[in-house]
């Protein structure tokens, strides 16, 4: 099978796909080794979990039926009857949470290591938007099993944009596909979850990865300039990545086997909202924050101010590379404060109702 010391397949790929160029590029890419190198693995982990979500999501599509009449039953069928359906759905649900968690960790590490510095501003911007898209995936996917908890959490969640002055109600109607959460919302969220978000994410992810290739790995200032050791990305760093990916697969499998993702009770739009409805953990801090706001602050509805605050925060997050130039210490202090606030609000939201009331 060799032809002048080279496999035929390789020769075929070299001639048609430019394999040699790719191999040269991969061989050239090197990863700096220093005390913060561990944080470099978070990006690869996020990418791996995204691929897991894509693969399990495609498998779920084979059985899922996006209508208020059939969605719950189709997921129930996946969990009870489809061979290994329980595994795929549980990995998809647990994986979504792990994915968002890793994306957060990746972004926070980049923020504190200041890896967004010039010329990597656009890598940061695409990354932040990808993080928002991950949250969008979580929000839209949460409703798809059409269970009571998801139904009412989506009702609360789609009420939030309605607080935006001027366009809020229109935005909320567009999201819901009507004045209230209904089968129309489910169809819409399904479209967003399986078509719109994946398409936009793929494009942005491509841009993000290209930019990472273009600029290479950022080295924190504190370890910059020393006589740095580097290792080749292929195969050394990739093999290390794979150790983490295998661990993630093991964790997901264990979670799926011991704690299969609950399905709950089918949503009944005419039933009263059950006690204890709350969104996924990554939205909890905003949910809890809005609850604590007084009904009016200086004549403006408290929730409107809250939503505007979150909007300002999102814009500020995108603008971090430019804000950093004006006041580096300010960005770090603000980031610590916001993270601490989010952590406290999340803990308060997770406390039992009686405890949080007292």
């Amino acid at each position, binding site marked *: 099978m060799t032809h002048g010391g080279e496999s035929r397949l390789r020769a075929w790929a070299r001639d048609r796909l430019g394999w040699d160029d790719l191999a040269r590029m991969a061989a050239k890419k090197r990863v700096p080794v220093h005390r913060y190198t561990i944080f470099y693995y978070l990006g690869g982990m996020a990418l791996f979990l995204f691929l897991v979500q894509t693969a399990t999501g495609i498998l779920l599509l084979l059985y899922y039926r996006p209508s208020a009449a059939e969605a719950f039953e189709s997921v129930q069928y996946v969990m009870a009857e489809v061979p290994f359906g329980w595994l795929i759905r549980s990995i998809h649900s647990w994986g979504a949470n792990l994915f968002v968690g890793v994306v957060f960790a990746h972004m926070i590490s980049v923020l504190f290591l200041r890896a967004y510095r010039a010329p990597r501003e656009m890598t940061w911007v695409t990354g932040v938007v990808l993080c928002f898209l991950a949250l969008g995936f979580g929000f839209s996917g949460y409703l798809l099993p059409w269970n009571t908890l998801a139904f009412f959490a989506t009702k609360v969640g789609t009420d939030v944009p309605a607080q935006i002055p001027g366009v809020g109600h229109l935005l909320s109607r567009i999201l819901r596909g009507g004045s209230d959460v209904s089968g129309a919302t489910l169809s819409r969220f399904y479209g967003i979850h399986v078509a719109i978000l994946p398409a936009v994410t793929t494009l942005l992810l491509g841009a993000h990865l290209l930019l990472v290739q273009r600029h290479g790995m950022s080295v924190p200032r504190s370890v910059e300039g020393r006589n740095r050791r580097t290792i080749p990305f292929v195969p*050394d760093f990739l*093999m290390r990545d794979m*150790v983490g990916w295998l661990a993630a*697969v093991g964790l997901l*499998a264990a979670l799926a086997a*011991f704690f299969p993702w609950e399905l709950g009770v089918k949503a009944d739009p005419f039933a009263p909202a059950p006690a204890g409805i709350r969104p996924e953990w990554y939205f909890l801090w905003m949910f809890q924050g809005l609850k604590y706001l007084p009904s009016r602050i200086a004549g403006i509805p408290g929730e409107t101010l809250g939503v505007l605050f979150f909007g300002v925060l999102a814009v500020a997050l995108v603008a971090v590379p430019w804000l950093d130039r004006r006041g580096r210490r300010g960005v770090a202090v603000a980031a610590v404060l916001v993270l601490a606030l989010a952590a406290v609000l999340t803990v308060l939201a997770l406390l039992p109702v009686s405890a949080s009331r007292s």
Partner: protein
Amino acid sequence: MRSAPGIVLLLLAVAAPDAGAEAPATKPPPAVNACIDCHVALDDPRISPPAKLFADDVHAKAGFTCVFCHGGDARQEDQEKAHDPAKGFLGKPRPQQIPELCGKCHSDPALMKQYDPSERVDQLSEYRSSGHGKALAKGDTTVAECASCHGAHGIQPIKDSRSPVSPTKIAQTCNRCHGDAKLMTAHGLPSDVYEKWSRSVHYAARVGKGDLSAPTCNSCHGNHGAAPPQVDSVANVCGTCHVTFADQFKLSPHWEPFKELGLPGCVACHENHEIVKPSEAFLAAGDESKCSSCHEEGSAGARAAAAMHADLVGLDGEIRNATRLVDRAEEAGMEISRARFDLVAATNALTRARSEVHLFRASAVHDAVAEGRTVAQKAASGGEARLKERDFRRRGLFVSLGLIVLSMAALIVWIRDRDRSMRESGE
């Protein structure tokens, strides 16, 4: 069941101010009511409190004044003129007078329609048919008349929780007399009925769960026509709610003999006031047995009871076993909706089988139990299958984790070797 929203509700509507208590009235009088002005100001504890209470009375709110019941002239400030017997002044009505006094308005359909088109007007005739009414007619003034239950001057509609005959208070109101041992002994009646009722399933539903459809005193005895159900009407009384049981009992081989022996239908097994939750033990031999009080051991009746008992206990056990399996599978996070559905069907079959007991035919109970057993076994095998599936998943996980850990170890070994060779080559 409605109780009289005041036999005294419009105690007074029938007399114009000048006509006294005997004359009929169709409309409320002028608002002048000198009676209240004087009576409120008096210190006499017999006179002042009723006048004060009347301000909040349903009749006062409808525009009626004191003279509609008590007669006299409400426009006179002078006591003698106001209490003029020529103007029908009655003073405090005697107990025997009260039902007729209230009935003057409350038995007048034309008048009552002006205030509530759906209001009943048969309270007086009902009362006359009651144990209370008959005793009062014989001159026994210790029995209840309208004011005994509804009050005299602060009368509220029965839907108002302040009314002593509101749905949540009626039992305590009856118990004011029926719990009085001295009074009840004088009438040859038991005084522990409230106590017994408070141990019943009906009390638990009504008071414990707030289910106002569960019976209280007047649900079975009537309110204005209150009387104990007779032996041959007990099944009809219970059957107003327990329709299926009553129908089945009438079709059962017990129906005719019970009538001949004068046994009080449902009460023979279930008691009257202290109706506790029935159990399979009613059918078995033992302290709780109901059947053995009539059917001797070894008789056909006792054998039928034992067969029904065995069937019901067997199905109950199978449902418990299936529930335990399904619960365990659910705790392990397994999808068990189909098994739960089967469990509900099995429980429904058990309920039906228990109901079939009132036919007193072992074959009827057996058929219902057989149906329940089939679904209970289906639920149990569903639960077992889910538990096996759980074990399969865990075994699969351990195998997969083993492979994953091996792969990770191989990668780590490879990385270390590679690092070592790179260091040695000075790369």
